[in-house]
């Protein structure tokens, strides 16, 4: 089924057709926000959120390129997206476990304080 037709039949109207570059722009914005969050936040949870954002930007890119390339490579795009989402879930679980330990040791989740590994 055509994606534009589906949107139209659902009652949405568009002034300009949504192209690949729109997706890429959105993904770039998402990625930048995630990166900024990683770099600027002190809170470990915030950094985790930033990482999730960047991952999702990547997922968005995968889907967008798959969609606009006309399904080249079979279901590779959605497959990659699903793998990434599962990976992100696992990563979040591990990261939260690390943060718990961090919290036990430093009574905060401020990453600036955990600088014991300085060479």
């Amino acid at each position, binding site marked *: 089924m055509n994606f534009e037709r589906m949107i139209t039949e659902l009652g949405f109207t568009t002034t300009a057709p949504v192209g690949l570059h729109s997706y890429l722009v959105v993904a770039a914005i998402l990625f930048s926000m995630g*990166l900024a969050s*990683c*770099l600027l936040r002190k809170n470990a949870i915030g*950094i985790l959120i930033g990482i999730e954002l960047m991952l999702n930007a990547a997922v968005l890119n995968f889907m967008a390129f798959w969609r606009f390339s006309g399904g080249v490579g079979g279901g590779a795009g959605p497959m990659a997206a699903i793998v990434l989402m599962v990976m992100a879930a696992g990563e979040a679980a591990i990261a939260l476990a690390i943060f718990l330990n961090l919290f036990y040791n430093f009574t905060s989740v401020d*990453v*600036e304080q*955990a*600088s*014991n*590994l*300085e*060479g």
Partner: protein
Amino acid sequence: MLPLLESMTVLQLAITIFASPLIAFAILSLSHHKVPRHGDWLAITALFVSFICSAEIFLRSFASDNPVMLNLSYSWLPLSAKHSLSGGILIDHLTAIMLVVVTLVSFLAHLFSVGYLHDDIRYGRYYCSLLLFTTSMLGLVLANNLLYLFISWELVGLSSYLLIGHWYEKKSASNAAIKAFITTRVGDVGMFLGLLVLYDQIGSLQYADVFAAVHFSADLATWQTVAGLGLFFGAMGKSAQFPLHVWLPDAMEAPTPVSALIHAATMVAAGVYLCARMLPIFDAQTLLVIAYIGAFTAVFAATIAIVQVDIKKVLAYSTVSQLGYMIMALGVGGYTSSIFHLTTHAFFKAGLFLSAGAVIYAAHHEQSILKFGGLYKKIPITATCYLLCTLALIGFPGFSGFWSKDAIIADVLHYNLVGSGHYFLGFAALVTVFLTAFYMCRQYFLTFFGQPKDEHLHSHAKDPNWTMTLPLIILSVLAVFFAGGGHWFPEYAPKKSGFEQVLQMTASEANTLELSHTPTAGKHQNSAAHSSEHGQIIDAHKLAMMLSTGLAFLGILVAYLFYYQNSKGQTRFSAQKVAERFPFLYRLLVNKYYLDELYHFLFVRSLHACAQECQEFDRKVIDGFVNLWAKLTMMATALVEACDRIVVDYYLVLGLARSVTRAGNRASALQTGKIKAYFVFSMCSVLALIIVLFFIV
């Protein structure tokens, strides 16, 4: 023929003779401290068995017509087609005589030692050495080739060394042992050279081969002389001929039975045996050398014996003198008389030594005849035996020594009579008769007659027990009757004693050995035994008998005048005054012609000086070189060590470590521990990767 041994073959007898002391030696040397009495009974029994078998061989040998009873050889070491070494046994008349002499005297010496050495600290060792000696001596006479003879020859030298040094705690005994060993070794070098020459030229050392080769090949001429002189040089060492006689008087440090067995009767006679056995290989010049050396030794040693005061030393010089007689007789071709004298001498000289041993034993190991005197009444058995043996040695008419000495003198005089010149030989033989009579009677008078010089010694002297007197009695009976009566054998003729008749067979058999490969006549034209001029021989015998008897009586008379003390303790003439009249001569004789000093100066001192020089050379030059080398090595090592320390350790190993440390220190700056920095770092890396991948590649 002895009844029990009739069934045994000659080979069996020969093996028994040799093996019996050998087995006893093997047993005792391993375990003499475990058997009762250190096994002296075993040694004596073994010797007795040997003696009985030897007697059987002796009797059989002279009953049969065949001179060579057994000549068995086997190839021992075949080296090439031309050269081979073989071993084997030869039993002929000469061997048979030697076997009896060796085993009988050895048996008696063993028996005598039981008493003489009963409280010795090395009693077992003594018997082992004595057995080793007897075994080697039997091997020496049984061998049918020069190689086995030489091996046994060295073994008797070894046993002689061991026995002379029996009381090695005494410095003089150990010195005497070394002196005897080295002096005889000097002779053995000559003998070995002779053997090498013969082996090189002939390719075999078997007597039969050697004699055949000597007889046949003319191109051996010079080598034959060399070999003959070499062998004779060995005989000179063993039989103590001038100038190698110096060891024998010193060898009297050995226990007296050893002196009787080894240094009077058997081992020193081995040189005479060798010369007799090898007589066919000596050419005329060599024989002349042999005769002159024997004659000179006979007179020379007799003159020294005149002034000696040690009872054993007198006998030792007498032995040297008598061996000179035998050698001289061989030199003029008197094979028969030489072996005859060897046999009789073995008995009476062993008897004299054992009697001297009994005297020394009775006198609590005092050996100086100046301290004896008047012992006749205290030790009558010993004195009688001593007297009988002395008379035999002097050549008193009717005693065994008379016949044998007469035979030698007759041979020498006959050699002169046939016009050869060389009157020195006859002169020496006759002078020695006089000297022998003189010094033996001097010793006898001083020891047994006159007033006791040492009361303590005199009052304690008594005859020893039967183990010591029995050998004396047996030997003195032999000294009187052995060959003296001459009725033992059917070939008895009035002019010659019976034993001498038997020995004539031995001489002809020596000829047979030599001539076994050739029909031509014997080559020793100067040999008295081979001469056909019977009239001259009989003349020589008459002359010899008259002269030697007269001179012997003269010697006895002079000794009586000088040394017989009457009841007041005075002598007719004073020997002291004669000595004072000729002080130089007296000192010369007492110091044995200064030969020991001369040898000491010539050989010992020069060897010491040479050794000193060598030591200096060693210390300075060789050690210097070694030290220099060591120093160079140390320097090189220091260099290598410095190189190792500076270059390898400091720059390479430690340098690497330092640079790694430095790099690590630098790199640790990247490790800030701030998670954001890591983020930035990884982002920058990704960016750089992208730039590289998309825009550069």
